[in-house]
């Protein structure tokens, strides 16, 4: 077991303590400790089979640990909470195809019991925030992948979450869209002071977005190393990526991943 997180003094918003997850005889996560502090942006990288998505599902409350515990604001976190929003990678499946963009965002407001009269203004504000102000009446199938993922993010923001969990959200998008969305997510997180947890297999993306990077190792999945990212904010697609610290981290992460690629 690797104990690498900060002091477990209860200041963590969302915390995992020596959690193991097994599916039958297969151990997916073994003794993971993790603490998300309020307002920080944590990225997770690791080779395939290192349990990145399982870790996210654990934090989401979608999956109970086989042993160990997950706590949210100091209380046991055994089922999903509206205060923890999840952005899934497969945005097309996570949206309701029979609802317009507007109505998809509305779902989260309906779930939270927001009065009908207050919904339209909130929806408009959220869709504007993610750049979908002109597509309120479109159905998901009429939107590009990038727009659909923006819509899913808008729905998650409608929950007014304390924690935003993202599972390779830009993995299926083209490079240009991906960079734009990275900047938008950074802006949204900075503005709302939400705590972000971001799973990715793109090492540069992890450095560009994160305050901290958790590197998992596989078979069974466990925390191997933690990298602190000391890059100034706001970040910039060109200048940040040219900084010596960025390049150093990139090299380190690359070497880390390389050892698992046979």
């Amino acid at each position, binding site marked *: 077991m690797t104990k690498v997180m900060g002091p477990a003094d209860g200041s963590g918003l969302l915390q995992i303590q020596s959690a193991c997850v097994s599916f039958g005889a297969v151990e997916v996560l073994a003794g993971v400790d993790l603490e998300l502090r309020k307002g920080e942006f944590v990225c997770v990288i690791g080779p395939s089979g290192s349990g990145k998505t399982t870790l996210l599902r654990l934090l989401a409350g979608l999956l109970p640990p086989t042993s160990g515990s997950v706590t949210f604001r100091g209380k046991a976190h055994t089922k*999903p909470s*509206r205060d923890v929003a999840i952005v899934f990678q497969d945005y097309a499946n996570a949206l*309701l195809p029979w609802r317009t963009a507007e109505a998809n965002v509305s779902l989260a407001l309906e779930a939270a019991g927001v009065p009908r009269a207050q919904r339209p203004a909130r929806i408009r504000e959220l869709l504007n925030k993610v750049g979908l102000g002109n597509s309120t009446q479109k159905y998901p199938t009429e939107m590009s992948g990038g727009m659909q993922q923006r819509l899913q993010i808008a729905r998650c923001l409608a929950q007014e979450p304390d924690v935003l969990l993202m599972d390779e959200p830009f993995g299926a998008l083209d490079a240009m869209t991906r960079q734009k969305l990275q900047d938008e997510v950074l802006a949204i997180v900075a503005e709302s002071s939400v705590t972000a947890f971001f799973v990715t297999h793109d090492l540069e993306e992890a450095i560009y977005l994160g305050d901290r990077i958790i590197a998992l190792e596989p078979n069974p999945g466990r925390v191997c190393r933690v990298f602190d990212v000391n890059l100034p904010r706001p970040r910039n697609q060109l200048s940040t990526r040219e900084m010596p610290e960025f390049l150093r981290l990139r090299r380190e992460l690359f070497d880390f991943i390389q050892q698992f690629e046979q």
Partner: protein
Amino acid sequence: MSLLRGLAIPAALILLWQGLAMWHDLQSDTLAAPREIILALGAALTGSTIWKDTADTFAAGGLGLALGFGLGAATGVLFGILPPLSRLMRVTVELLRPLPSISIVPIALLIFGFGYSLEIAIVAFATYFPVLVLTENAVRQIEPRLWEVARALDLSFAARVIKIVVPAVVPRLFVALRLAAGIALIVAITVEIAANPMGLGARLMQASASLRPADMFATLFWVAYLGWLLNWVMLRLQGLLFPATRGAPR
């Protein structure tokens, strides 16, 4: 155009039938020439009894369909959402489902006697199971990710059913309704032929028993036309309500 081409063979067969009947100077208790059938149908349609019979058959069939479809869809949604319940009920359903609906006529007759209730009950029984199976399947095929979205949003059970399950299965539910409507008409008329002295089925039996072949065939053609019309209307409705299912298998 293709409709006209499709009608060529039936039209030719009817003409051939008429020709043969005239050639042999047909005098029969079981067959009638098309000319007499058309005359009989014309006479019937200008009278009132065939409309009364049609209304009876459609009322009993329609109410039975409404009952069978409503219960079947509700059970299907429940079974789809709660797999343990579905497993618990599987043997029961699989034992009852293959039972030919007409075979429960004797039991239903003892319970309901002759009349609407008998027919409604049997049509409901006949349509309940296909709708149940189709609905349960439709619920099972809902994108699993949507269940996680529902959990993440902490939607209540009722909200899950109303906001996710129902909209997701409605197009398939309509297909189930269309198939069940066909079954309802078949079963309603079968019940009327076998037992229930009302509706178009009974009309067929009376014409046959009193050796009036022209009337019998006239009713038969009328039933065939109604069956075709029913399917046509349902297909039209489906295309109108769910444009995405247009061109789906019929």
